[in-house]
């Protein structure tokens, strides 16, 4: 096993790049999810629960293999199962591992008013620090992927950490380690991007998926989780993956121009108060005490 100080150079029974190879702490890291080789086994779901010590939930059968309709405050990694019928009547069974996308331009972080509650590490991981979370849930509004989830008992918001604790020690995230088919990869963003593009090209040239492509949406500055999709023109078919995710304009305005306006208004107010003081002096309170009654 690798530790924070030791890095794996070669691994047995393993083809392709070593998980986490070259992931220096200052380099952009990324998870690559090849949906064309995902078999929906949910090993990543279980690994996530076990590594993060998340408690069991009661679930209900919902006419699907999917464990539950969406991720939860204590369920950060969920495979979305989607039956998709092609024009010729043939079926596709699309499975997509849903979790925090670790956007380069994270809407949650932009929306969050609590200092340090959401951070982005130098390697790109976006992490929630619950001790600073004030439970306002603005991050929920800020996320275009419906990821942060509120725990109404603790009044804190939770989501996938990209196993920042493991990655910081030179390990791959738990979901990556558990994946049996090699559908999940982890490494530097550049390496993952290259691997993804190569795979997409293979799918276009050899598997008849003419629209195969890589999902790394520019609207949020690119993501720390990228997908290979059979059909890049239709990400919605994969359980509602937005084709052009953006940080909501409300958050943008509020944290952009509105914030400036607010700041200006506040500064203006302060200046007004100061000017008023300088010009008119302190306010005198009349009537309550004649002698020595001034504060």
């Amino acid at each position, binding site marked *: 096993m690798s530790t924070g100080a030791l890095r794996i150079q070669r691994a*047995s*029974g393993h*083809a392709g790049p070593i998980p986490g190879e070259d992931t220096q702490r200052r380099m952009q890291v990324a998870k690559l999810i090849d949906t*064309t*080789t*995902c*078999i*929906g*086994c*949910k*090993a990543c*779901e*279980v690994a996530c*629960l*076990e590594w993060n010590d998340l408690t*069991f*939930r*009661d*679930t*209900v*059968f*919902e*006419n*699907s*293999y999917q*464990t539950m309709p969406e991720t939860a405050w204590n369920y950060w990694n969920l495979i979305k199962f989607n*039956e998709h*019928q092609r024009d010729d009547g*043939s*079926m*596709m*069974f*699309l*499975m997509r591992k849903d979790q925090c996308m670790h956007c380069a331009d994270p809407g949650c972080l932009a929306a969050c008013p609590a200092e340090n509650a959401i951070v982005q590490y130098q390697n790109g991981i976006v992490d929630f620090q619950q001790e600073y979370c004030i439970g306002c849930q603005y991050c929920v509004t800020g996320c275009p992927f419906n990821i942060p989830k509120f725990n109404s008992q603790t009044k804190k918001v939770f989501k996938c950490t990209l196993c920042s604790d493991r990655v910081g020690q030179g390990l791959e995230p738990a979901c990556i380690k558990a994946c*049996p*088919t*090699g*559908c999940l990869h982890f490494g530097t963003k550049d390496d993952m991007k290259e691997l993804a593009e190569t*795979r997409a090209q*293979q799918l276009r040239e*050899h*598997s*008849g998926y003419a629209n195969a492509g890589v999902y790394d949406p520019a609207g949020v500055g690119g993501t720390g989780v990228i997908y290979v999709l059979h059909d890049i023109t239709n990400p919605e078919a994969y359980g509602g993956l937005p084709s052009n995710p953006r940080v909501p304009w409300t958050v943008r305005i509020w944290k952009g121009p509105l914030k400036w306006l607010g700041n200006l208004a506040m500064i203006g107010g302060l200046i007004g108060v100061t000017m008023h003081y300088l010009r008119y002096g302190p306010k005198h309170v009349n009537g309550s005490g004649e002698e020595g009654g001034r504060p």
Partner: protein
Amino acid sequence: MTNGWIDIKNTDMMLIMGGNPAENHPCGFKWPIEAKRQRNAKMIVVDPRFTRTASTADLFLQIRAGTDIAFLGGMVRYALENNRIARDYLLNYTNAAFIVKQGFKLPEDGLFSGFDAATNTYNKATWNYEEGGSLTGKTDAAGDTKAPAVPVAAAGGPAPAPPAMPANTAYDFSLEHPRTVFQLLKRQYSRYTPEMVERITGIPKDQFLKAADLFTSIRKDGDMKKAGTIIYAVGWTQHSMGTQIIRTAAILQLLLGNVGRAGGGVNALRGHSNIQGATDMAGVFDILPGYLKMPNPTDTDLKTYLARVTPKSAKPGPWDSFNYWSNMPRFTVSYLKAVYGDAAKKENDFAFHYLPKIDHSYAWAEIWDNMSRGGVKGLLAFGMNGVAIGPNSQKNIDALKKAEWLVVCEIYPDETSEFWKSPGITPEQMKQIPTTVYRLPGAGFAEKDGTFVNSARWLQWKNAALPPPGQARLDQEILARIYLKVRELYKKEGGKFPDPVLSATWGYTNPQSPSLAEVAREINGRALADVTDDKLNQTIKAGQQLPGFAWLRDDGSTTSGNWLYCGSWTEAGAMMQRRGTEDPSGLGIYPNWGWSWPANRRVMYNRASCDLDGKPWDPDRKQVWWNEAAQRWAGNDVPDFKVDSAPKDHMGPFIMNAEGVGRLFVPLAALADGPFPEHYEPFESPVANPLHPNQSNNPMAKRFKGPEDKLGTPAEGYNIVCTTYRLTEHYHYWTKNNPMNVQLVPEPFVEIPAELADDLGLHGGEKIKLTSARGHYIAKAMVTRRIKSMMIDGKKTYQVGVPIHWGYRGIAEDEGKTALTPANLLSPAVTDPNAFTPEFKGFLVKVEKV
């Protein structure tokens, strides 16, 4: 598997059928994915449902459950018609050129020659090869019609030995003689036209042709470089003609020259962690460890038994045959020495008379049938949930009510140990059940060491992660203590035949709980006296572990609990514990990881990976080859061959067959239901067999006739084809007790086609009831477009699927969230005549909204 899990990465073409590896073998499924990624290999998936495996396929076909022979027979026909066959391979490595006896009849009316309707048996005399050398250029002339010498039983004597194969088999290398296996094969499958395939399987003709073209494309224009694999599991075995389905796959692979090749083979995926080991160690009633045949009452002494079970080589005169089973006496005597030790002496036939002689079938379904008729008085159920695994679970529940005692060794309370409170039983009825139930606390898999043998035949040692909790005990301790107690009772009280029990070897350091390492060493076997191999000029000293089964002797100087495992724990140490990760060839052989039987060979029949001169068909995938300079076979893998047999000697690569070649035609009694596979309908089928409606089912399949073994017909309203299966998220009847698994799939369900749901006015998540002639099952409906309606012989037909994992004990069950109906209440106890596997797939039900 003829090959192995990792070897799948070497393939160019996959046919995955009768199995759902992405869901049931997700870890192994990395290798099919690897083949796709690294070699652009193609994957064809054929299944009654569009599964998670199908989601990664290049081509998916929906087949009606139980019609696999029709599909594969159609593929055989397609390969023959379009000359997509490996001609040299066929001619030299299979029995294509062998001549079959005159009088042999193909089952064009559903029956092979020799059928006796009165007794429902086959006289298999014509299921044999002709005697007589080369018949090239000859047709059925006078010299060719010699009647076989049929052995006659002496009055009152034992039954005659069955007819043997001829020593000098007739052949025609031009393959033109009408009775060559090749011509018969052609004729047999000429009826399996794409139109017929469509009528039977429900797969539209154009889709079938697409699949047939794709799969056989690896042999386009006579190219031999590419290799294709066939991957299957219990979707093939669990039918009344299961063995013959696998045979059809083997025929197809022999035609295409895919057996013995890296990335080829016929590959059975085993469904439990150690089911391969269980089979190797005789988990079935009709074999002894290492697939030695169980003696029967005609085997009056060791000599008679060995004469019956040891095959004599049979082949065309100019060829050579290794006939490895000719070593049967060595394997048998070494086994007897392992079991009975000093009590097994040359003078007493090595205690052969201690072995039980089976007088009839003791197959799974027979045991329960026998118990239901009061014959079997008690049952020891170890790590096995007999009620839930069925078939016809209610019959099993009712049978247990008649037993005197039941011992269940488990880690959870299960349906078997609580059969007495199965749904429907009233407290009053409960009081009437006389059965005494003993529950023993077993240990879980992580609490035991020992080996798992995987589908690839690899023995891999594992360590215990933690000791069993509380009063739980290891299996070997429980079994040892039962044995020692029984032995003590025999010693004290005598009995009808105490000798086998009293004489069995039990030389373990701790007799109360033998260490599995000691048992593994015992199974490997050792020399009892100095054993010398003159050819190698090497001697194994008395007391030493044997390095391999070539050292076994039939004179009592060696022991081995299972000849196939001989070599797994040698003087050099525990081969099964090795963890070497070197793979010099890059073929995924990993020769120093664990140990695979036989002889650490990773791909069986690998001589067939080379052409006649001993050169690999594909120079990029060199498994073994003939080294002319050394006059020996060499290789990256261990050659599965007589190492010094030069190619010019023309020894057949299928050394376990007496003919030395692969069998397109299976002679004599090796299979109960025919030398060629024929499509028979499941015993409950929506249609009569379109090939021969008067002989719809397998005449040799076993079915029970009691009132509890009813079969349903479409006329009675049972018109929906039902199949059972397992989920990734659960492991049999066990993980329903684990909150983590329950969270992933919390409740039982039934997968039904959206069209059928519309007919019923049913929405996903609503409850439905399935009823078969034997019982009913209630669960929520999973309405899906992944199962479509099918046209079967002109009739619109639906299929539904039931995951088997629930019953009446478990988290969801105990919380009252389920209907407490085990899935196998539905399935029929009809079994395959060769492997005795019940027809869990492809029976009939009615469906209604609850």
